[in-house]
């Protein structure tokens, strides 16, 4: 508030003195005014406002005799006036009127400077109110500028967006409606703020004469759009069926881009690949808004091949899926699903997998499936994984399965892949015969499926899903022996089978022995504890004796432990019975073959 002592002094200063100072200022040309004069004027203004005398200040400013003073020094009042409006002080209307008067009187350059100063480092609680107060006046002033309008606009937008990025983005419709921090209102206001500049850019560009200033205006507006796509739109939860504030903001951005002659197809498909990750994030959001939310999709060219669109989008999908933010991942999954959906089944060739993003995106998808704590995200991810598989042709599926089996190290994912392999073998047998799932090429794949890489140390319970699915596949193959015998696959398959089952049996017997021992120890321990309890109840001893047993400590209660061990043993029984059945089928087939 300036220098307190001086302010106090000023309060006590007689009205005559104040008038004297004002008179002096009226007669002083701008060049002769000193920094102390500016400071004094600012203090006068602040004192008026804190004293609730906004009306008096407004009168002073509007007085024609003070026009010179206002023109020279008026800008210093911007800060206290805006603060007063933000804090909703007593003289709100007078302050607004005063600010308006200043914007019409002072030099636009100085005004821009003072207003922009107010956008730096705003108090967190006052961000939205300050911006909402500033915007209309900032617009007025910028429109008055003759030179370097574009540059100033750019600075303004940059500063404003930086402040807005400090506000949290709502992630539920309720939060968005409540708009607690005023983020939605601000972006709405920001749209109105940029409208006249967009109109100007639209008029100028495409006309035969464009200046560098016009180009700069376009560039600044483009920067604004790209920043907006990253923040807040990439985080926002948008839904076609609920046209919320942020949805409308997204639409405005999507409409502004073609208006300033930025072709969406150029931006999305033909941008330089070695771009910053921020630029990629902006374009990823753009792809999502266009292809998933279908905002302005009706004006997007309907001539690109779906495979080309998928290729281009894959980079954005990869970017989004590698993020740890839920809103990014969900958008990535939606874009993935949409892009795959437009492609014919069984059509994508194996050569696509050589592209970096085509390799990376499914790997990221896999991480989402195994690591993401949110079930709805995992469920969507699984759907996308299946769609991914369905769209590859046979050779590509084969390579994909091999890749996943080698890299996932996760029984759940592996079992899902094995199930898919079974489906492909079945499809091949039923009609779509191909060498990848019914010929020589099936063997390396089976080698990966029917293997226990840790040998005797395999944790059967951990790998249960994969093992059960593998055994199912094996059983299926044996049942369909007639279709497989004609190929060289059969003999080699039997070798693989024998080795696999042998090792599996070893693992089961080791594991079973271990768990049975654990169960026995647990039961012993229970018996001892029960006996002790009986003894303690019977005896009249005051001191309880504690027996220390060599049982492993566990967080689970004994009942739960018991359950876990029991279910483990049941699992081993299940596996063994399936192995038994498989061997039975194999023998039957052997016998029937010998008879023929």
């Amino acid at each position, binding site marked *: 508030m300036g220098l307190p002592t001086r302010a106090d002094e000023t309060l006590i200063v007689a009205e005559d003195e104040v008038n004297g100072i004002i008179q002096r200022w009226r007669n002083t040309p701008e060049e002769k005014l000193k920094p102390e004069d500016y400071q004094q004027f600012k203090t006068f203004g602040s004192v008026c406002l804190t004293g609730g005398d906004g009306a008096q200040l407004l009168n002073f400013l509007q007085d024609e005799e003070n026009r010179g003073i206002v023109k020279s020094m008026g800008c210093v009042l911007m800060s206290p006036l805006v603060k007063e409006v933000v804090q909703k002080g007593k003289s709100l209307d007078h302050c607004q009127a005063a600010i308006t008067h200043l914007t019409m009187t002072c030099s636009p350059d100085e005004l821009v400077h003072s207003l922009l100063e107010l956008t730096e480092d705003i108090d967190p609680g006052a961000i939205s109110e300050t911006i909402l107060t500033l915007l209309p006046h900032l617009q007025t002033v910028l429109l008055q500028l003759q030179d370097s309008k574009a540059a100033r606009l750019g600075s303004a937008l940059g500063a404003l967006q930086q402040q807005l990025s400090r506000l949290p983005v709502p992630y539920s419709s309720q939060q968005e409606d409540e708009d607690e921090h005023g983020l939605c209102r601000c972006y709405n206001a920001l749209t109105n703020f940029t409208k006249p500049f967009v109109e100007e850019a639209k008029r100028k*560009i*495409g*006309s*035969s004469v464009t200046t560098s200033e016009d180009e700069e205006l376009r560039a600044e507006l483009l920067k604004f759009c790209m920043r907006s796509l990253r923040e807040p739109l990439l985080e926002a939860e948008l839904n076609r069926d609920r046209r919320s504030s942020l949805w409308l903001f997204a639409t405005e951005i999507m409409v502004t881009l073609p208006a300033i*002659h930025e*072709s969406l*197809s*150029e931006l999305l*498909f033909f941008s330089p*690949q070695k771009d910053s990750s921020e630029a990629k994030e902006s374009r990823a959001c753009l792809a999502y808004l266009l*292809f998933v939310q*279908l905002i302005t*999709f*009706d004006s*997007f*060219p*309907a*001539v*690109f*091949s*779906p*495979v*080309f669109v998928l*290729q281009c989008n894959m980079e954005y999908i990869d970017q989004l899926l590698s993020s740890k933010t839920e809103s990014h991942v969900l958008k990535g999954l939606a874009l993935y699903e949409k892009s795959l*959906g*437009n*492609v*014919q089944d069984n059509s994508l*060739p194996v*050569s*696509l997998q*050589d*592209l*970096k993003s085509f390799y990376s995106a499914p790997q990221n998808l896999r991480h989402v499936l195994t690591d993401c704590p949110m079930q709805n995200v995992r469920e969507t991810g699984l759907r996308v994984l299946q769609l991914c598989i369905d769209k590859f042709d046979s050779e590509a599926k084969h390579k994909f399965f091999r890749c996943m089996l080698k890299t996932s190290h996760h029984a759940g994912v592996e079992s899902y892949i094995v199930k898919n392999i079974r489906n492909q073998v079945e499809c091949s047998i039923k009609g779509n015969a191909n060498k990848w799932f019914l010929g020589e090429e099936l063997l390396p794949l089976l080698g990966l499926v029917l293997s226990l890489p840790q040998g005797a140390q395999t944790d059967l319970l951990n790998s249960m899903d994969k093992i059960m699915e593998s055994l199912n596949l094996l059983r299926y193959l044996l049942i369909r022996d007639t279709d497989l015998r004609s190929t060289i696959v059969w003999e080699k398959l039997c070798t693989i089978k024998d080795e696999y089952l042998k090792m599996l049996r070893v693992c089961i017997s080791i594991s079973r022995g271990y768990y049975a021992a654990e169960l026995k120890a647990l039961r012993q321990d229970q018996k001892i504890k029960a006996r002790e309890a009986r003894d303690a109840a019977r005896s009249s001893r005051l001191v309880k004796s504690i027996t220390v047993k060599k049982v492993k400590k566990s967080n689970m209660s004994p009942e739960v432990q018991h359950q876990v061990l029991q279910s483990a043993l049941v699992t081993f029984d299940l596996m063994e019975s399936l192995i038994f059945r498989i061997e039975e089928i194999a023998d039957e087939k052997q016998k029937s073959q010998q008879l023929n």
Partner: protein
Amino acid sequence: MADEPTREWSDEQLKSDDLPKKDVITFIQDNAAHSFLNEHKLLGNLKSVAKTAKKEQLIIAYNQLFESKRFKGTEPVEDVTEQIRTVKIEDKKELPAEVIDEGPPKFKKAVLKKGDKTNFPKKGENVSCWYTGSLEDGTVFDTNLPTTARKKKQSKPLSFKVGLGRVIRGWDEGILTMSKGETSRLEIEPEWAYGRKGLPDSKIPPNAKLFFEIELVAVD
């Protein structure tokens, strides 16, 4: 051991205007070692090299080739591996071309306005066009033609590299048969358009035959 190539042209013949640059470049490209071509900036597409290389340069190169005897196959192995390393592997945007003969083309073309019949686009070249796409029942599902002539000055035609599978096949194949300035009507079977799936978001139903009126404005 390869035979050394023979000197076909004398200095006088080289300097003569009757001998086109392209012939000299072709000879040098066919016979010189890779590193020689690199040093003399004679690597690459014939047309581009012809644009940038001066006749004097070529004469000098031609003479130097025979003086240094740096013909093809005279490089040590290390040089060759270095060359392989320096060859840039582009992050491919295009799919390998399918060389399967699928039968007759699945589109028909009717020329509405003739082009210059000289500038035909080649695979990989950039083309620009105005177009209107409609369905069999006449519904226009897409166009990049602005509503007024004035706006056409302010808008840009659609630009893309033709023949690389970036657009539907009917366009790729059809536009390759058009010359600069030509306006034609393409009737594309669904197999070379959006097939069984269609493009519902663009109001193209499954198994739709598409009709495009295309004006090929620019080639490369």
